[in-house]
């Protein structure tokens, strides 16, 4: 297969993915560490390298509003944000999913204030897990580019029609340069046809954009939204398969298992830290320790079947959360734990909260987590939630 590899950052890779997806309308407001993406897109539109309209909006709230409106009249749309900007969009995010407009967004994962911080963690997007958007988390710049293209195909599918958020770690991915293969436009066009929607609003078919409901029909709307999200699971699988056949890169659908075949203990994580975990898994495997990684790609829809399947095969599961739901535990852990509770087997569990506000997660940290999981199984310990870089447990 012919390749065109260039050395670019995660932010630039996203911009390339957007260009290749030919959106009609881009509306975004710049925020660190997403800024380079929207700067590049603005430059590409200005230079005539892509046909879309770039709307310079005055805020993130306007960005999501503009993309929703454009999507309602049948346009393919893109927006991007991060952290406080994403939170400022929050009202619109629910509108967008409720309206079933398949807007695609890039979110550069960044901590949320206070303390004000531009560095990365997952507290921005995980705090919006319930806003009805499909959420995928990527591990490198290539996956970021590829998932933008896949996102349109998934979100715009007639059985899904749900907006999708592609999450990449601020700085660790957005600002790191690496080799990225840029697919040919012709191949992307073949993979991703023009956006067609049965809900298109036009002069011939006027529709109501901000519709309301009463108690006797609201539940039906929400039921359908939930069904659409479950429908996405099959679509995600099909789209990933088709993508692999076309471009030669496969991302293993909802989750990726790494060396889990005969694993005794497994770490579960999202995003770029999965790469570092792979390195530690290889090291510990070479020492004869049966460890593995479960990379969760999609947080919504949630990969319940995959988590249960893994839990049936292992003795311990540790979940790394770059977030904390104050007063309880990490949000990824809550979700993983809910799936594990549905199988009829004891699995030792532990939640490792860390990487907050950009703090490095080192290989030594990860090795220690694996060792704690081994000793947790051996000592039949109580389940633990710990801030691992502080070495304190919250349920002591």
């Amino acid at each position, binding site marked *: 297969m012919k390749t065109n*590899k260039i*050395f670019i950052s995660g932010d630039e890779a996203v911009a390339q993915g957007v260009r290749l997806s030919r959106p009609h309308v881009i509306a975004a407001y710049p925020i660190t560490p997403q800024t380079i993406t929207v700067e590049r897109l603005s430059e590409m539109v200005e230079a005539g390298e892509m046909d879309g309209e770039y709307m310079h909006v005055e805020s993130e709230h306007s960005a999501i509003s503009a993309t929703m409106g454009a999507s309602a009249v049948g346009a393919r749309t893109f927006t991007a944000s991060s952290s406080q900007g994403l939170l400022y969009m929050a009202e619109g995010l629910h509108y967008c999913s409720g309206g079933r407009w398949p807007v695609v967004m890039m979110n550069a994962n960044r901590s949320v204030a206070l303390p004000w911080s531009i560095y990365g963690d997952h507290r921005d997007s995980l705090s919006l897990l319930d806003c009805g958007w499909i959420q995928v988390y990527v591990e490198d710049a290539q996956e970021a580019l590829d998932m933008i293209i896949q996102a349109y195909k998934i979100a715009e599918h007639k059985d899904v029609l749900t907006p999708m958020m592609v999450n990449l770690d601020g700085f660790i991915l957005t600002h*790191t340069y*690496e080799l990225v293969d840029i697919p040919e436009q012709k191949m992307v066009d073949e993979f991703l046809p023009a956006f067609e929607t049965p809900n298109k609003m036009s002069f011939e078919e006027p529709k109501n954009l901000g519709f309301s409901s009463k108690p006797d029909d609201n539940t039906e709307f929400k039921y359908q939204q939930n069904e659409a999200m479950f429908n996405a699971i099959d679509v995600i699988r099909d789209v990933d398969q088709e993508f692999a056949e076309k471009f030669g890169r496969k991302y293993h659908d909802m989750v990726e298992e790494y060396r889990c075949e005969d694993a005794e203990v497994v770490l579960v994580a999202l995003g770029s830290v999965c790469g*570092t975990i792979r390195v530690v898994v290889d090291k510990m495997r070479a020492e004869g320790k049966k460890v593995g990684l479960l990379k969760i790609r999609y947080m919504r829809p949630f990969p319940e079947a995959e988590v249960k399947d893994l839990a049936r095969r292992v003795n311990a599961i540790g979940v790394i959360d770059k977030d904390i739901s104050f007063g309880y535990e990490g949000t990824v852990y809550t979700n993983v734990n809910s799936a594990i509770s549905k199988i009829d087997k004891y699995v030792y569990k532990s939640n490792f909260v860390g990487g907050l506000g950009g703090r490095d997660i080192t290989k030594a940290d990860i090795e220690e987590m694996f060792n704690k999981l081994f000793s947790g199984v051996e000592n039949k310990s109580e389940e633990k939630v710990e801030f691992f870089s502080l070495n304190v447990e919250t349920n002591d």
Partner: protein
Amino acid sequence: MKEIRWHGRGGQGGFTASRLLGIAASVHGGKHALAFPSFGPERRGAPVLAFTKIDDSKIHDRSEVQESDYVVVMDETLITPGFEKGVRPGATILVNTEKVEKYQDALKGFQVIGIDATSLAMEVLGRPITNTAMYGALAAASGLVSLEAALASIRTEMKPKLAELNVKIVEKAFELINN
């Protein structure tokens, strides 16, 4: 995996050099590379770091660089107490200086190599922008990338007129180190 740490001041082009090395190693050298700045706000003149990771296979490790194999110092006033932290014992340290001898005691346990990059940059560019001189010196001292790959990365990344001046600088720096 080889890890390289670049020291400069905001505006001196340290991050550009880290990317040039990444391009030479990956696009022109068939290896894999990551290049990234020290994350966070940037200010002209303030001390800044940049990093390059190079390996034969895909680089999955996204944690911070903890043990550099090579350190490049574009401005010698940045060698301050604590500088050696995070540098692997025996690592090669390249310093832009007229007098490398003065670091032999302070940086014991490392291979310290000096090059007067400022004079070289002034001679070719007429400006004290030393990133490509240090880049050429690193290529020669380390063998991480070939001279051809280093020159190709400059031509990939810079506009033709500027590229030719920097090609000249890299060639001269490479020669100075090899001699």
